[in-house]
């Protein structure tokens, strides 16, 4: 349709990559945290709940700054990572994915938790009486039944991850081909004289991806609903 330059395609690809990696990184911990929050009874549950939701209310730039402090070359985690494993997160694609993952983590947790709370505990009790132990029960009953929530969370986080700006630019900077995702590229274009056309094209791509993501989420939700026999 619209002719994108190689550099602009690079930004689109990078955005998709960063969003995918962020979801991949945060999905399993998000399911674990959601399970703890929904079912666990332990001291500090409220604190954990607040901590998880922090990125939703704190300005993204502050989250990026926090990540810099922790995962920076001299940070408490960043320093040993760099010294022992030679891993550097700041100003890298991995760093952009990490910043995106932290920002979208509460979105996944919320969706997964909602899915989990919709699971009838009576079914898990039934599985128990049929001889299924805790792990067996989780993987054969709880997980499949909460999967619509997990998928909804993943798709939402992916769509939101495509557009993450503040945390990424603060933590990973705005390096074309490296950390310059779609929103960063749009921002850069608007800062460049004569970049209006580029900004418009990229904005359209961004918009299309978001709509496609929403439609996909809806389609999956329907399929899953039918699979679980909700609308048979």
């Amino acid at each position, binding site marked *: 349709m619209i002719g994108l330059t190689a550099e602009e395609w690079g930004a689109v690809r990078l955005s998709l990559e960063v969003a995918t990696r962020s979801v991949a990184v945060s999905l399993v911990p998000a399911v674990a945290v959601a399970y703890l929050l929904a079912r666990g009874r332990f001291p500090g549950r409220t604190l954990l709940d607040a901590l998880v939701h922090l990125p939703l209310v704190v300005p993204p730039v502050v989250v990026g700054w926090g990540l810099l402090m922790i995962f920076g070359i001299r940070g408490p985690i960043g320093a040993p990572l760099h010294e022992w494993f030679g891993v550097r997160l700041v100003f890298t694609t991995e760093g952009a994915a990490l910043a995106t993952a932290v920002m979208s983590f509460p979105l996944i947790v919320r969706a997964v938790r909602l899915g989990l709370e919709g699971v*009838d505990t*009576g*079914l898990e*009790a*039934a*599985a*128990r*009486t*049929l*001889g*299924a*132990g805790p792990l*067996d*029960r989780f993987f*054969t*009953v709880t997980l*499949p*039944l909460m999967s619509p929530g997990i998928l909804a969370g993943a798709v939402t986080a992916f769509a939101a991850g495509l557009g993450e700006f503040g945390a990424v630019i603060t933590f990973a900077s705005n390096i074309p081909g490296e950390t310059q995702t779609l929103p960063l590229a749009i921002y850069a274009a608007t800062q460049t004289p004569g970049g209006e056309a580029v900004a418009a094209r990229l904005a359209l791509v961004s918009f299309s991806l978001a709509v496609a993501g929403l439609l996909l989420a809806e389609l999956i939700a329907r399929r899953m609903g039918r*699979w*679980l*026999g*909700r609308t*048979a």
Partner: protein
Amino acid sequence: MIAVALRHRFGRDGFTLDTAFNAPQAGVTALFGPSGCGKSTILAAVAGLLRPDEGRVALGGDVLLYTARGVFTPPERRRLGVVFQDARLFPHLSVETNLRYGLRRAPRDANGPTFDDVVSLLGIAHLLARRPAGLSGGERQRVALGRALLACPRLLLMDEPLAALDAARRAEVLPFLARLRDLAGLPILYVTHALDEVDALADHLVLLEAGRVIAADSVEALSARTDLPALAARRDAGVLIPCTVVSVADGLTALSFAGGTLLTTARPGPPGTRLRVRLRARDVAVATEEPRGLSTRNILPVVLAAVTEAGEPGEAFLRLATGPTTLLARVTRESVARLALRPGMPLWALVKAVTFDHRSAVMEETTPP
């Protein structure tokens, strides 16, 4: 022997369950009582799904719960099958996978019915590929029954399995429950508040009220007692009599029982069929002389054993002995006074042949081969 002793308090000011009873490790033991009497709680505690404050549950020599000794076997290791009121089939699995869920987790050396046995017993072969959401309530409950059965349980626990079904679906599932009971000899604890289910299925009865056991005995023995308001105050109170069909002729079935013969227009089955009949006390009248010119077909010579309270003012129960069997008649106190009824008097008990409820009062117990 299934030994159950439980004490559990709900919330701070909730009611307290304080109950102890033994049930034979064979046949159907019904836990019977009004809603909220704690019978489902007892079942949940036996299943292990609820940890009572105090208690002991033992199945034969196997102690499943003994709070005083810190013994608690988790439900997944108790090997007790549970059939819930709401079926609880896994919605994401096909009927067949649901059925095999317990089977796959049963110990290898466990001997139980095979998959094909259960499927044909419950008549669910045509449902195997379907999803639970596409099944009717009755079909769901049959699949749930099969799923519990296939886990090779040592004891089957049923929590009002018919309560969520309408009359037609109940009638559809009840015969399967009866067949299941006759199969194998798997002991069953059956929670219900429906007397017709007790009549149809139960051998033993544990009567519960407000978290306490009021009485526990065989169903026949308890049905003849007039001191149990939970049973005697019901309008359908009456003695449950085991009998056998001796002949069927002219639309009348003759039932012999210990102490006489009853004629009924109900058609329970061919001669040889054994069944239980609930003879409602309100359907039995008495006469002090042998009546003549009456349409009533059953006129049994009896001896008045006792006159007792019937719960309602103005009414009394007559305990009538015929051979080893006791019948109950509900009459007015005025009649007792007018006829000067005294224990020891010979009387005639009158029972109309059309009295017996064709649907629920006469239930198939076992059909001859």
